[in-house]
């Protein structure tokens, strides 16, 4: 009560100062006054009321019309005051929700963390950055005792909390597969049944699974509707698309997947990615797949991890630092 009175006094002083001198300083102070009032959660109708009171105290003999007009304005402002208070309540809710989601995002990061394996004969790089706080992309490495390396990449169609929830399902289901060498087609078929059983039909998951055999240097892979990666042939110094047929996960319970094999020569690379990489936008056009292989080529002398990071920074900048989709890229190179 007393602070409000104080405020009325200072408003009155400022108003008087302005009316008498019309100087900018009084207006600057008025701005400060209103910012301060906003911080104190004083709603705009109260400001009108303070104005009316100050005016009446300064000029007790104003024409009746003016007083009436001010009361009319006050009446108009009541709904604005209400809207203002409602927004403030919303803001608190929003902050709460926001902090909830950032806790969840941290959790997710802990959950999805996968160790990039150190293996003789191969150089591996991986990057995965969410567009929002939570990641709907997933990648995972599985190293078995027999010298083969499994690489899983998946993308939930959709972003944010629902995609993240679905992602955690992929993670736990993958964890529950036995750690020994399993064919890519069998893994996708198993995952397809999990997704089909647990996720509602409106949600799709694309997935790629590759198994690299360090004995034979064969890269075996299957794809469930996943964005094609690139194969880089060092000898030809050329990039090829890694094409693979296969339905997205969760549509048809009994679908089977085809398995493909690519033999890797020294210096060759397999580049896996999600559509967050290929569907980068600049202005109002999507980039071409060739632009990605061009950027990779530009950095191909670097270690695999550095290549992924350079490519990411390139496309981050190209998109004005606002990712439109989760961005994941993995590079596997057979050492020379």
């Amino acid at each position, binding site marked *: 009560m007393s602070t409000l009175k104080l405020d009325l006094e200072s408003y009155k002083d400022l108003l008087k100062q302005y009316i008498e001198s019309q100087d900018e300083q009084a207006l600057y102070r008025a701005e400060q006054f209103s910012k301060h009032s906003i911080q104190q959660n004083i709603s705009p*109708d*109260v400001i009108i*009321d303070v104005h*009316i009171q100050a005016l009446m105290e300064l000029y007790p003999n104003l024409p009746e019309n003016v007083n009436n007009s001010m*009361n009319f304005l*006050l*009446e108009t402002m*009541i*709904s*604005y*005051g*209400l*809207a*203002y*208070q*409602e927004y403030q*309540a*919303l803001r608190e*809710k929003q902050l709460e929700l926001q902090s909830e989601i950032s806790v969840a995002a941290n959790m997710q990061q802990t959950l999805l963390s996968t160790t990039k394996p150190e293996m003789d004969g191969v150089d591996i790089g991986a990057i995965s950055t969410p567009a929002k706080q939570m990641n709907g992309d997933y990648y995972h490495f599985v190293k078995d005792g027999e010298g083969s390396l499994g690489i899983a990449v998946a993308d939930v169609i959709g972003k944010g909390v629902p995609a993240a929830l679905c992602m955690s399902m992929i993670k736990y289901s993958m964890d529950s597969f036995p750690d020994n060498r399993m064919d890519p087609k069998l893994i996708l078929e198993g995952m397809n049944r999990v997704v089909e059983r647990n996720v509602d039909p409106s949600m799709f998951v694309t997935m790629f699974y590759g198994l690299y055999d360090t004995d034979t240097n064969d890269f075996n892979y299957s794809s469930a509707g996943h964005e094609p990666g690139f194969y880089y042939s060092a000898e030809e110094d050329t990039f090829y698309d890694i094409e693979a047929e296969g339905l997205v996960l969760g549509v048809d319970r009994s679908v089977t997947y085809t398995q493909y094999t690519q033999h890797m020569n020294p210096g060759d690379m397999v580049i896996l990615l999600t559509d967050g990489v290929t569907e980068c936008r600049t202005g109002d056009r999507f980039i071409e797949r060739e632009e990605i292989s061009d950027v990779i080529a530009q950095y191909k002398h670097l270690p695999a991890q550095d290549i992924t990071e350079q490519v990411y920074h390139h496309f981050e900048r190209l998109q004005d630092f606002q990712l439109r989709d989760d961005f994941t890229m993995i590079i596997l190179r057979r050492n020379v």
Partner: protein
Amino acid sequence: MDFQSCVNIKKEWDIVGARQLGRDISKKIGFGTVDQARIATAISELARNIYLYAGTGKVCFEVIENLNEKGLRIIAIDEGPGIRDVTQVMEDGFSTSGGLGAGLPGVKRLMDEFDVISKYGEGTEVNVVKWLR
């Protein structure tokens, strides 16, 4: 407690009548201009709810006093369809009217005390109080 004035709400024009009576009483009790305007806005909201959702009903006014306070009680009664889920209706910003200071949450903010009793299929009674400070 023993004296109540009511305004029947049947047509949109009655909303203005209810506001007028509410404002007259508030003025008499001694409410200032802002509070008068707030009370009138709350009455609008209550009366319009009756007019829009129940068809007919009434808005009643009562001057109340306790040991050291004086105030105005407003009771809005209808025998309309009632509110199925009060919790939801009282939620901010997502009411049927699209939020933004409308609806019952707005009335609650405008007044000092707020109570709603609604029986689904039997009608609604909203009971609010504004104290003179």
